[in-house]
């Protein structure tokens, strides 16, 4: 779960990047990775123009894992010119069904 600090000068950019990552769709569920709760946070190194996305997958050997990671990198680099993106896959906290946001649940018809 990403938290935004209003005193952080980069918080607006982080929020923008988070919103942009809504364009990355899980190919099986057809729901974006933000509403699925897969993205835990974004770190930006503004001087070096580096972005690190901390995220997880719904299972450790998700067959679409590589595609989702590749999509996250493409999405950030394609929308924020000059930025290089990396993805840190983490397994703590473990993704569970409770991680899905309200909008994700609505899209899943829950």
């Amino acid at each position, binding site marked *: 779960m990403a938290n935004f600090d209003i005193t952080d000068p980069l918080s607006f950019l982080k929020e923008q990047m988070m919103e942009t990552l809504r*364009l*990355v*769709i899980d*190919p*099986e*569920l*057809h729901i974006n990775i933000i509403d699925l709760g897969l993205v835990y946070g974004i770190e930006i190194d503004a001087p070096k123009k580096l972005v690190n996305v901390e995220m997880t*997958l*719904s*299972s*450790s*050997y*998700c*067959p*679409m*894992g*590589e*595609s*989702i*990671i*590749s*999509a*996250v*990198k*493409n*999405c*950030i680099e*394609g*929308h924020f010119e000059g930025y290089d993106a990396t993805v840190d*896959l983490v397994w703590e906290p473990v993704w*569970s*069904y409770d991680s*899905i946001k309200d909008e994700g649940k609505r899209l*899943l*018809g*829950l």
Partner: protein
Amino acid sequence: MSGIRQNPGLYKIVVTHYVAAAFCFLVLSVMMLFSVKAFAGHYFHPQILAITHMAALGWGTMIILGASYQLIPVVLETDLYSEKLAWITFALFLPGLVALVYSFWVFVPGIHMQCGAILLLLAVVLFTLNVYLTAKKKKQETIQEDFIFSACICLCLTVALGAALVFNFTISIFPQDQLHFLKLHAHMGLIGWFLLMLIGVSSKLVPMFLVSSYQSTKLLTYSYYLIVGALLSFLVDSYFFGLSLRTYLIFTIGATGITCYFIFILKCLRSRLRKHIDLPMMNSFLSFILLKIATLTVPFIIYFHLKNNPVTIRFSMIYGEFMLMGWITALILGQTFKTLPFIVWVKHYEHLTGKFKTPMPADLFADNLLKAQTISYLIFCLTFMPGCYLLFLPLIYIGIAALMVTAMLYLSNIFIVLFHKTITYGKL
């Protein structure tokens, strides 16, 4: 970094198996068309033997081998041990299959049949070795691993016994007659190989595709021990004593194991996050119903066998048809369009996702063809199985014609997926 890497080598192996299996399915339906009358007789008939081996090896096993190279790494959460070994397996398996099926069809139990059996045995031993060395890389054991590895062992034993039976045609190896060993060979294949393998893989994939919150594997553990226990008891008991009243008890143990698996699937279904069930998954659920029907015919086979009533042969035929042409076929017809589009999609779109709007994996196959395929397959089930039970040839003909249509639609849709051209709908 996690996730399965889709490399070009793995893609070629998997796709080659899918295409070979689809052609075998079409050939199988044509072979059935030329053997309509044989379906009204005994199962120990050259054409029925050829058809059964084409269905079990060319269709069922071929696609399971191909899918395994993609899915076993997903289920066991590690990379495939060797792609080269997979190619060698295929290079031995295909000629072995052709030689065996042709020799059965013309029924010449000579060198071709024996070579076919040996090639198939070598192929399945290499496949098992590949699976074993893949699983060895992983530290944590899961129940899925037990299912898959036991299935591979059963496949080797099934083919080894089959090869011995082939040699028994010309060299006297067994004191008893062929039919005595045929039921052991058939059950090791159907229950030991297909059932254990398909439960092992589907118990991981069904919750994944349904996005189910049910995580417990307790039911699967019960299922594994009950099915394996029942299979071993059946093999030992029927080898020494033939079918008896004890066979009912063994059947009950095995059926309880299958029921545990069904309850597991039901729990996954009830706790699924994805409410919409697509057509490929509907096909898969149809296969579970067909498996249940096949299971329900077993007490009748035992009952009529113990009464020395020849109707037992007809029930045995129905049982085999529901297992191979019902359960296994329906599962493949559905799951192909869950797995193959993903494999092809990753090749075409992995580097484009996030940059461009792209089609989704489910957009890669022709939905209308899949609908038509499902309808024609349902017609096959509703005409062929009752036709064989009632020995009513027109129904069998209609059923086989529907199966041929199913096979053609299936093959066309496979090619639509494979010849998909990369398209994008503009920048994101």
